[in-house]
């Protein structure tokens, strides 16, 4: 590590450069340097002195920190996925909200959960977390809980968000091209200005979502759910393959399996033969709805208003209900009363 390299780094940094992808700073003395929000993807800090350095919100993905001195360093909300921290001194380092995954290599005995780091993996619990302006492109977050999460202006190109819960999430101005949002719950989500071209939104729940200013060219919206409160981009023609959820709607034979339909008003709707397997209908109104022949296997019907609903030949196996007596008439019955 020569002085010229450091001088070069400093000059570029002062001039406003923040992208130092793959830079070699092995053995450098950067103690007390403020490098917040800097992009160091794939950089090499092996053996460097980074004591008290500020890497807050920095992109440190795939970065080498072997035997680096990170004592007292601020790594809060930094992206440490696939980073190598073997032998690094992390004494008094602040790591709250720093991202990691299964490929991140920590020093022996280090517990990322204890340091309050966030795991980015399928099924991750990231509700209400601040993930704005992050490069999460290609990340697999299948079935992750991102309800209420802040994902504004994030890079989510090719991200796998299949079956994830994005209820009330703020995802405006994000790059979601080629993102897999199949069966994702985007109920009440704010997607204003997001780029959703070539994304898969099939069977996604868009009830109450704000899609104003979104780019939806070549997006797959087959079987996606929307309501009168869904805001589409100006001039957008709603495809016939989407399902309009409203009182009296015709959803005959529709596949709504696994959908989160909490509090939805489907009174008088035609759901005959529909597949509602494993759906969440907590607090929904199905009064006078036609559910004849529908599949409600394992469906959550807690607090669901089924007054006057037609349950003739409805499959209620393993359905979770309040009052088993209310659903007399169903052909199969093996519910779990609350």
């Amino acid at each position, binding site marked *: 590590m020569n002085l*010229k*390299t450091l001088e*070069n*780094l400093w*000059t*570029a940094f*002062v*001039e406003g*450069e923040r*992208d*130092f*992808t*793959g*830079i*070699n700073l*092995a053995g450098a003395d950067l103690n007390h340097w403020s490098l917040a929000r800097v992009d160091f*993807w*794939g950089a*090499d800090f092996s053996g460097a002195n980074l004591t008290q350095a500020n890497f807050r919100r920095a992109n440190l993905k795939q970065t080498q920190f072997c035997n680096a001195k990170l004592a007292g360093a601020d790594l809060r909300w930094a992206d440490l996925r696939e980073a190598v921290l073997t032998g690094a001194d992390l004494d008094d380092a602040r790591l709250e909200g720093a991202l990691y995954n*299964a490929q991140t290599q920590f020093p022996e005995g280090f517990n990322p959960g204890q340091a309050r780091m966030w795991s980015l*993996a*399928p099924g991750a619990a990231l509700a209400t977390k601040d993930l704005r302006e992050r*490069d999460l*492109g*290609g990340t*697999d977050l*299948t079935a992750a809980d991102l309800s209420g999460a802040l994902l504004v202006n994030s*890079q989510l*190109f*090719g991200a*796998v968000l*299949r079956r994830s819960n994005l209820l009330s999430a703020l995802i405006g101005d994000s*790059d979601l*091209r*080629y993102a*897999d949002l199949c069966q994702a719950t985007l109920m009440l989500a704010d997607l204003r200005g997001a*780029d959703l071209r*070539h994304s*898969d939104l099939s069977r996604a729940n868009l009830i109450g979502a704000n899609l104003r200013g979104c780019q939806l060219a070549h997006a*797959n919206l087959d079987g996606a759910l929307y309501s009168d409160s869904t805001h589409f981009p100006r001039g957008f023609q709603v495809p016939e393959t989407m399902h309009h959820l409203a009182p009296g709607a015709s959803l005959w034979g529709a596949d709504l399996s696994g959908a989160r339909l909490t509090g939805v008003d489907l009174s008088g709707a035609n759901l005959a033969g529909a597949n509602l397997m494993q759906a969440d209908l907590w607090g929904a109104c199905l009064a006078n709805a036609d559910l004849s022949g529908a599949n409600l296997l394992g469906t959550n019907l807690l607090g669901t208003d089924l007054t006057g609903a037609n349950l003739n030949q409805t499959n209620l196996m393993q359905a979770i209900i309040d009052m088993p007596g209310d659903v007399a008439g169903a052909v199969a019955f093996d519910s779990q009363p609350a």
Partner: protein
Amino acid sequence: MDNSPFRRIVLPALLASSAGFAALTWPMTSDRAVQVSEQLPQPLSYWVDSALLPNQHKEFSIRYIGFAILSSVAIGVGTAKAMRVRQGRVQRHQGLLDQVLLADDQQEDFGGDRLPTADHRQSHSTNLAAADHDAALTATTAKAATTLDWASLLPTTPDAPAKAELASSPIDEHVLYHIQGADQCRSLALAIEGEYYRYYRNRPDLDKARRLVQQLHQQGKRAVATWDDNGYVVWVHQPERPQQAVPWLGRLATS
């Protein structure tokens, strides 16, 4: 030593501070000062007299010396700040000049063509997307003179090729898949001649895309880049055969 902060910042500050202190305390030590003070208008003349006669106005003289010390310190600090700003400006200009010279050197190395992949532009000059691509290329070329000298910062591997060629094509020309590896994680991938290239990273311009591909080559990884109206996407070769590969959105080749 010529470029040391002591010579360029500390020494001028010390000199300025000393000069300031000397100028302010000169009246107390010089005989001519009494003659000069007599010619000054009131109340300036009274203040200078008070400073010159420490026995009669001891309290004021002490205060005046304190004022002189503080003033000289302020002069020193001000000079140091000014020198630091000047030094930073000079360094920045020097850095930019070095980079311009370096870019010129590289241009000579390429025989006048700064972009080895320039031929690629001609094949797509007829459509709008290619026009955007050209604009990106031009912008990159113009920016090259003011960006960081990466050659000195990137790790080098002896076996790695000196310059990695960037194979770049429009993303629409490729067949995309969702692949699932042994770790059960899904990722978007490109299929080229039966080989899969996993999504790696988005890059805003050609220069950064090329640099990333070069870094991956140095690590012994095969990489390709695609482009669209938003920039570039770098894809890295997947050596292992995926356990599952599903065409993206159920669509196969579009071209």
